[in-house]
């Protein structure tokens, strides 16, 4: 299977492929049989509550730690560090040398990935200027705000122009404006053909950015596939408001429907909207409004990972 994965990656189909990865820390199994595939050039989200095993999975994929069992292939390499020069990585816990100047920090991160120091400094100046930090190029990291330092680290992640970008909780700690900027940067990188994997416990980011996702809960992949496939796990939701309170039309409403205020909420029957509409009209419902909503990723997440995991995603408890 791994040979097939490497072959696929070399052919450009998959940037990353993992098969049955497990990782044990003592008696605790942090990652339990994770299998996933990241298509080349896609934006791929790893979704899950805190402690689900996202960071450990990313660390295994990057070769920072080895799995207890299972196989992985990154950009066609069985040993991820062999592809290190083509990968950019933003860890969840940001790490920069406080005394280093911004341009040197970016150039150093590039040098770690094989970029000559002089070229790294030149690109660092360009990147800093392009992100409104040109005046800070020769100032130490310790003088930056948290958001600015995070931007510098992100620029260090892309300075060597990687083919694969791995971002662990990249939106954590950013204000709304910087989150929007980061989303735009991710889209721009994707437009340039860069494959992007990012982990998040905020569903909205994944919903806006990702083409494919993996939902991880308790170390296991609960779902892996396209965002639309995740949504397709649920039937569309019908929101109905009627003038009539009672009548034959009530037999049309499924047994599990909720009545909230003046609204009935229920899953669209498998027969589709037309028979439903006909039955409502024939039954004298007096339709005031009827909306058929496509379920969001959050609804799909609740259905796939469960209410408890979904609650943690929404609340986003601090780590």
């Amino acid at each position: 299977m791994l040979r097939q994965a490497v072959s696929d990656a070399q052919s450009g189909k998959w940037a990353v492929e993992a098969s049955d990865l497990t990782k044990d820390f003592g008696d605790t199994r942090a990652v339990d049989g994770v299998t996933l595939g990241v298509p080349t050039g896609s934006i791929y989200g790893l979704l899950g509550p805190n402690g689900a095993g996202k960071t450990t999975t990313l660390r295994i994929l990057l070769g920072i730690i080895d799995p207890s069992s299972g196989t992985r292939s990154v950009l066609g390499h069985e040993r991820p560090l062999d592809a290190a020069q083509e990968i950019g990585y933003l860890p969840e816990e940001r790490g920069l040398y406080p005394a280093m100047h911004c341009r040197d920090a970016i150039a150093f991160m590039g040098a770690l990935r094989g970029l000559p120091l002089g070229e790294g400094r030149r690109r660092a100046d360009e990147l800093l200027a392009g992100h409104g930090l040109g005046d800070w190029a020769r100032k130490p990291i310790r003088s930056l705000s948290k958001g600015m330092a995070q931007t510098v680290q992100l620029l260090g992640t892309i300075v060597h122009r990687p083919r694969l970008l791995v971002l662990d909780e990249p939106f954590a700690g950013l204000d709304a404006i910087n989150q929007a900027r980061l989303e735009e940067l991710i889209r721009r990188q994707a437009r340039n053909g860069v494959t992007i994997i990012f982990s998040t416990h905020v569903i909205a980011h994944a919903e806006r950015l990702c083409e494919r996702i993996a939902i991880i809960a308790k170390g296991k992949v609960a779902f892996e596939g396209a965002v639309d496939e995740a949504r397709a796990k649920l039937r569309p939701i019908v929101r109905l408001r009627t003038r009539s309170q009672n009548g034959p039309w009530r037999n049309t409403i499924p047994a599990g429907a909720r009545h909230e205020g003046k609204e009935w909420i229920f899953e669209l029957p498998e027969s589709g909207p037309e028979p439903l509409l006909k039955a409502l009209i024939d039954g004298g419902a007096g339709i005031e409004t009827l909306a058929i909503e496509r379920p969001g990723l959050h609804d799909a997440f609740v259905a796939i990972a469960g209410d408890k995991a979904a609650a943690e995603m929404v609340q986003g408890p601090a780590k």
Partner: protein
Amino acid sequence: MSRLLRSAWVIGRRDFTATVFSKAFIFFLIGPLFPVLLGAMFGGIGARVASQAEQPRVAVIASASEFAKLAAARSQLGDAMGDRPGVELVSVAPAGDPQAQVASLLASRRHSVVAVLSSPFDQPHLTGAVDRDGTIAGQVGLMLGAARAPPTAPLEVVSTAPSSGSVDRTRAITAQTGQMILFFLTIILAGMTLSQLIEEKSNKVIEVLAAAVPIESIFVGKLFAMLVTSLVGIAVWLGVGIAGVAIFTHGAAGAIPAPAVGTAAFLVLTLVYFAMNYLLLGSVFLSIGAQASTVREVQTLSMPVTVAQVLIFGFAALAVGSADSPMAIAGAVFPLSSPLVMVARAAEMPELWPHLVAIVWQALWIGIVVWVSARLFRRTVLKSGPVKRRWWRKSAA
């Protein structure tokens, strides 16, 4: 250049520049001045305290000419011993009954004497709170002997090149000094390497590094960066030291006997043994640092290693003055004490071949220690959770 070495170069270059261009490095460079300044300061205070300390005073009942002879003898003895005599003499002219005068002097608070010497050149008597075989009686006896001795021909002194005894003594001092410099420098540098690693772990930079380069190259880069940093420090100290010796001794330092292997070879060997000692201890300290996540944990974990290193230093010090003894050979064979023992041997014994053997032997052990430490480092450096419970703790639970 292989990937490992290239990555180690990137890590090492950053560590080197970050250290050498930091304020801390200036303190590192002037660090050796502190013991010298403190020694001078406390030495001066000690001398002042000693000079102001109350001397035992002995009253001498004698004529002025007799007292002058005794005082001259006291001064002569002081010069020869390289220290001032402990007993101070007080001149008292004879007056009336000698026994009554002695009793009066001993009782007098004005003179405050511990003893009275009467009739020094006829029938000397020392009366007072002194022991027959004690220091005061002994010193007074020597002064009397010198004062009463007939004049003799002055001692003819012929200065020659250093004798074998004086060379051995000087080389033993060189050996001890070499060992001490190696020991303290290694401990300081290994500690600095360790604190840098802890800083990186607390900054979370270590994960950025580990994702980009092999962990082994982080280990090797850090180890060698601090070695090169220390060589810069040593070069500065050597330069300042040589200039200081040339200025303050006016070339007299040239009269100091050279180490047995020769000055140049000794300096080269000292550098090599320093590198060996540092690489051995630095590797151990780095692998300790990989397992700790806080400064407190580092202190707890490194304490046994530091204590062991002090014991090893003591063991190596036994080799000074007896380079071919079984103890010295055992010290040269034991990897952790080998550099310290061999630097002492370089000062005292002229043969070079034992150094070649020792360097190969130490290099072998460095390879083993660095390899094991790097693997341990790789396994533990990114663990941030609670320490894994060991089997003995499990069974105790």
